């Protein structure tokens, strides 16, 4: 251990606020980045699922399996 006590560890000979501000910011940003990215993927999956369910609902339950085309109904979009 490089420090004599936990108190010394926290204060870091006066540099504590700077060191801890850095570490806390770093981990907050990193974890937030990871969580946000994960949430985006989940949201993307949800959005895809809803899109397909909507199509299934429109076509009727009989059409959901056995679609011979390799693409589900593609809507013409402007993007």
């Amino acid at each position, binding site marked *: 251990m490089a420090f004599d006590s936990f108190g010394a560890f926290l204060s870091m000979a006066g540099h504590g606020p*700077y060191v801890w501000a850095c570490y806390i910011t770093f981990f907050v940003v990193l974890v937030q980045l990871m969580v946000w990215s994960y949430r985006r*993927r989940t949201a993307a999956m949800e959005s895809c699922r809803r899109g397909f369910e909507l199509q299934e609902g429109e076509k009727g339950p009989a059409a959901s399996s056995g679609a011979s085309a390799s693409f589900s109904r593609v809507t013409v979009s402007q993007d």
Partner: protein
Amino acid sequence: MWQFFHKLGSPKWFYGIAARFMPWLLAGGILLLMSGVIWGLAFAPKDYLQGDSYRIIFIHVPAAFLAQSAYMMMAAAGLVTLVWRMKLADVFVRAVAPVGFMFTFLSLFTGAVWGKPTWGTWWVWDARLTSMLILLFLYGGVIALGKAISDEKSSARAVAVLVLVGVVNIPIIKYSVEWWNTLHQPATFKLTEKPSMPAEMWVPLLLSVLGLYLLFGWIACLRMQTEILFRERRTRWVRDMVMADRS
């Protein structure tokens, strides 16, 4: 070998590969990063010049390395986009640009806060920080241009051109800023220069760097998957995958 490249062109293949690697990247990344950080914070010896404030190095350097590496990776991906028109390369650039931006920001923030106990001011226009700031601008430009062009193909190629122009300029910018810095500041030791680091210091640093790289890999895979989901949202494989989850 060529089959690998052919497969690499398939978003579906990449999605699967990413899914397999991600748990390892996450676990490995957390393990290495936390060991490096804890070792560096609590166990590494004090620096004889800077005391304890140098411990910021264990997160500043990984962030800085990644900020720069991510841009290099984006440049390579940009080249692939322009030469081979591989869509996955553009997926990579779009996924990684915001991550690179955040790491550059973290590098700047930790660098600046480190400056306060060392130099007495919150911001110092030294060569490294200023170069990092310019890198932040380059990332910002890439993100902004990508969002501004709506057509996917044009956007991919325009962003690729911009990233490549940026990468050509990075050594020029670095050299210019370093030269400018010597003009305006007396020769003092640089913020992160450690001519000889004992093993108790560079081993935890290495662990943190590796750990952050692995975590970056996890985040990149995750974001690329999201981008692929969006682009392939009307295909059958996505439908099968997404509907199969439903239970």
